[in-house]
C-alpha cells in the first residue's frame, strides 16, 4: 500500500514545520513541506494530498493577530479547495498557530456549517507568552487523530503561545460545541480535574484546549503533539523512562486511518 501523502503548509514565520514533518514521516506518512505560494500559483494541488498540516509558529510574525495574515491569504485564494478537502473526509490538523488559523478560517468550530468565524483565540489571560508543559483530558476519541487514546485519558503536552484564550461568538456556539462534544481536549490539573490558571494556561472558556469538527477529520489544538513524538522530548522524561512520546499516537491514529480509508 502507498503511504498517505501529507502537506505541511508554510509561509514566512511558520516555524514548527520541521517537527511536524518529522513526526509525519516517522509515523509512516509521505510528508512534504510546501510553501503557501506553491498552492497559490497552482504549482502544487491540495487535492494530491490526504492530510493538510497547518504548523505552529508565527506566520507573518503573528502581527495584527496570531494567524490573521496567513488566514487572510488562504481565504483569498485557497479556501474553496480546503473546504472541499474537508468535505471529502481528508484530514486537517493544526496545532497552535495552525489552530488559530483554523478558527479564523471558520473551519472550526463551524457549528452552523457556513464556514464563518464563530470563535477567537485571544491573548492569554496572564498577558504573557507561556512555554511549559500542561495536562489535557481526552473527552471524545471519535476524532480521527485521537483514535488511539482512551476517553478520559490524561495527556501531557507542551504549549508555547501568547494567544490561546478560546472565546466563542456567543453562548449558542459554545453550547453547540459542548452538546456535539467537539471539545475533544480540555485543560486539567495534575489530578485530572478541570481547574483555573495556571493549569488552564490561557483562560480558555470551559478549559477548551482542542476542538474537532463533527465529522472528526479536522483537529485544532493549542498544545504541540508534534514536539513530543518521542518520550525524550517530554519535559519530565528523566523521571519516567523513554520510548514513545505523547505525540506519537496522534500521528499514528491519523496515518492508520488514512491507510484504511484511501
Amino acid at each position, binding site marked *: 500500500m502507498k503511504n498517505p501523502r501529507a502537506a505541511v503548509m508554510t509561509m514566512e514565520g511558520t*516555524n514548527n514545520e520541521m517537527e511536524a514533518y518529522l513526526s509525519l514521516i516517522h509515523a509512516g506518512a509521505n510528508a512534504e513541506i510546501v510553501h503557501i505560494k506553491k498552492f497559490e500559483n497552482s504549482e502544487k494541488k491540495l487535492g494530491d494530498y490526504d492530510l493538510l498540516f497547518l504548523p505552529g509558529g508565527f506566520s507573518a*510574525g503573528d502581527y495584527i493577530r496570531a494567524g490573521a495574515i496567513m488566514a487572510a491569504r488562504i481565504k483569498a485564494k485557497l479556501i474553496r479547495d480546503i473546504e472541499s478537502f474537508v468535505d471529502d473526509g481528508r484530514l486537517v490538523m493544526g496545532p497552535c498557530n495552525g489552530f488559530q488559523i483554523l478558527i479564523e478560517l471558520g473551519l472550526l468550530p463551524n457549528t452552523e456549517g457556513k464556514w464563518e468565524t464563530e470563535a477567537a483565540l485571544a491573548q492569554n489571560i496572564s498577558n504573557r507568552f507561556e*512555554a511549559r508543559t500542561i495536562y489535557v483530558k481526552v473527552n471524545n476519541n471519535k476524532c480521527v487523530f485521537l483514535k488511539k487514546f482512551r476517553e478520559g485519558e490524561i495527556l501531557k503536552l507542551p504549549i*508555547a503561545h501568547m494567544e490561546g484564550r478560546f472565546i466563542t461568538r456567543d453562548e449558542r456556539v459554545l453550547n453547540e460545541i459542548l452538546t456535539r462534544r467537539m471539545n475533544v481536549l480540555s485543560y486539567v490539573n495534575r489530578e485530572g480535574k478541570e481547574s483555573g490558571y495556571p493549569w488552564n494556561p490561557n483562560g480558555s472558556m470551559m478549559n477548551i484546549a482542542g476542538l474537532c469538527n463533527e465529522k472528526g477529520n479536522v483537529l485544532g489544538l493549542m498544545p504541540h503533539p508534534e514536539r513530543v513524538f518521542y518520550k525524550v522530548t517530554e519535559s519530565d522524561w528523566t523521571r519516567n523512562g523513554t520510548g514513545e512520546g505523547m505525540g506519537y499516537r496522534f500521528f499514528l491514529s491519523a496515518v492508520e486511518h488514512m491507510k484504511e480509508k484511501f
Partner: protein
Amino acid sequence: MGTEFLETVEILNSGVKELNKISKNYNLGLSTEEMLRIKSYFSSQGRNPTDVELQAIGQAWSEHCGYKSSKVYLKKFIFGIAPNKILSQGDAGLVDFNDDIAIALKMESHNHPSAIEPYGGAATGVGGILRDVLSMGGQPIAVTDVLYFGERSKKGFPSPKFIESGVISGIRDYGNRVGIPTVSGGIFYSNDFVPNVLVNVGCVGVVKKSNIMKASVDKPGLKLIIAGGKTGRDGIHGVNMASKTLEKGEEDTTTVQLGNPIIKEPLIHAVLEANERKLIYALKDLGGGGLSSVIGEMLLSGGMGGDIYLEMVPLKESNMKPWEIWISESQERMMLAVKEENINEVMDIFNSWDITASIIGHSRSGKDLRIYYNGQKVLDMDLEFLTSSPLYYRSYRHIKQPKESFLPSYPKDIERIMLKMVGNINVRTREYAVRQYDHTVRGSTVIGPFSGNVGSEGPTDASIIRPSWDRSEGIAISHGSNPFYSKIDPFRGAKAAVDEAVRNIVSSGAKPIAFSDCLNAGNPEIPEIMGEFISMLSGLRDSASSLEIPYVSGNVSFYNQTGKSRIPTLPTILAVGKIDRIEKALTPDFKNFGNPVYMIGLPYVEMGGSLYSRILKFNDNNVPNSEPTILKSRITKFLKAFDDDLILSSHDISDGGLAVALAEMTIGSGIGVDVDISSFGMRSDMFLFSESQSRFVIEGRKGSEERIREIFGNDAFIIGYTSESFKGINGEENLFNIELERIRKKWKEGYI
C-alpha cells in the same frame, strides 16, 4: 569638491587640529595618530579622500571591528589552545561532532545598543548571532542569553526594570518568531551594571561537514549577492557607538534598530537551501560595519580585489548617499559570493522564499577595492590598508591585593540563611523570563531549562538538543560566569567561569568539547582595566589549556563604562558538550527515596564573592580558586561513573554552595535528603555555603557505594540519603529541617 551626493574631504593640507575636527564631524571615532596615518596614505596617492573612503576607514578601524586593543593579547593568551580540535573559524567557530556533522557556536555581546534601547538591542543581538552561525553554513538549533542587570535607578538613564523587561521581550519576540529555541542562559543582578547593562547572546548550530562555508573570496569573477533586508539609514555608526563609553541622554536614533525576524526566518531557509545545493562559493553576514566591513574582509582574506556598484543595493529610502549605503548596519542581510553559472538558481531560491536579493559587484584579481555609484567612482583604495586596523599594545597595570579571608561569627540560624539564599534574587527561579521563551520549538529539546514534575519543575544545569531524530547523540549547551568573583579577582573569576560552564555540561552526562568566550570590560585606555583584562585572559588560558578545550570563537566588548561606574572585567563562557546516548542524560531532580547522596570534592574556606558573603555583607577577597588539573580529573571520574550507570541525578555546586545545590535538587522532585556532616570537622556554615570550585552533588544508585569509592577515591563523600524530609545535622547540632513545599515556594517566589 564632488557632486551633491559625494564630498571630497581636505586632509592633505590639514594640521592636527583640523584632522581631529574631521574625525569628530564625520563621526569617525579615530585618534590623531590614526588620522595622520590616513593623511600619509592619501599623500602617497596624491589626492584627498572622499567621504565614502573616510567612513569606510572609520568602520574598519573601530574597536568593535578591528579588535585594536585586544588582538595582540587575544593572540597571546587565547588563540592556539588545542588548535587541532578546531575545525574551522569564521563568524562562528566549528568543532567536530560525529562522522556527519560539526557544531557551530558563538557568543557575542549586544551591550551598548541594549543600554539605549533594550528591546531592539536585545532583539538584534539574537538576529546577529543567528547570522554568525548561518554564515558557516549552519542550521541554528539553539539560542542562549546571559544577562546582567542593575537593581537601582540612576538619574538620566532608563530604570533597570524598564531595561530588563525590554531586553527579555526583545529576546522573546525575536527568538520565538524565528523559531529557534532559546534554551540556556543566565540572569544576574548587581548594581555594577547600572547603567551599563550587559546582554550576551549565543547561538549553537549544526553543519553537515560537506556543507561548511567559508567567507574568503579567493577567485576572480565571483558575483557578490546581497540578500535579505533592504539597506536603510538605520544602524549607521553602530560600531562607533559600541567603541566608546556610554554617556547620559544619548539617544542617537540612527543607531537604533528593532530587527525583523520575519525576514530572518525565510532568509535562513533560503541560504541553507542554496548551500545544500552547493550553489554558494563564500558566505558572510552583514553585521557591524555593514557592507564596508563584510566586503573588505571577504576580499582581503581571499587575496582578491573587487568592484562594487552601490546603485544595485536595494534600499529602504531612495535618497541615501553612497557613504550611508556603504556603512549602514541594517539588519537581516547576508552576502553571498556565487559563481556566474549558479546565479540563476540562487536568485530563484531567494524568489521562492520571497526574499529580496541583488547582484552588487564581483571579485577580480588585484589588491584594491573600487566602488562606483551610478558610474562615478567613489572609493578606490588598497584593501590591506583599508581593512587592517592599527593594533595597540595598550599599557596595563596589575593591582596587587593580598588575599584576605574573613571569618564571620558563627550564625545563629542556618535554616533562615538557607531560605534567604533560595529566594535570593540571584538564585530564585528565572521562569518569569525563560517561560516566555519558546524552548521546545523544533521538537529537539531533550533537556530544557527546567526539569522535574510537571507544574513544579526545578532548574537544570545544561540543556541538551538532539541534532538528528535518527541518531542518539545529543549536544549539551551551558554557560559559566560570575560577576561577583570577577569584580574582586578577574583571574580567578575567569577560571571559575570556565569551571562552571564545564561543570554544567558534565553534570548532564556530556563531555565538554568547545567554548566560545564573550569578554566584557570597561575602557581599555585605562591601564588598570587593561590589567584586569589581561588577568582574565590568563585565567581563561590556564583553564582551557589544561582541559585541552579550544575557544573556537568569541567576542570582545570594551567601553562598558559611564564616568567612574564601570562593569567588572568578566567573561561569559558558552560551552558545548557531547553525549552519546541522550536517553541516559541526567537532570538535577532527585529520582527516588533512600538513595545515597554524594558530595564530589571538599569545600574550602574561600568565601570571596560568595552568596554567603553577600547576604551577610562581609568582605572577603579570597575568591574560590578553580584548580584546572583537579577539574580535569573530576570530569574524567564523573564521566566514568556516569558510563557505569551509577548516577541517577546530578547538580553542580555553585551559588550558595552545597546548601543551595541540595535545595534545588528537591524542587523538581518533591524528594528531600537527610544530611549529616559530622564526620568532616568543618564549621557548618563554611561547609554548607562554601562555593569551592569543581564540585558536584550526585544521587547514586542504591548499592553504588563501593564502585563510587573505586572511581573517585577520596574525592567522593556520602553526606546522606534521599528521604521525605529535608534535614541537616552536625552531630548533636540541628542545622536545618525545612518542609519541601517551603523551599519550592521560596524559589518560585513571585512566579506562579
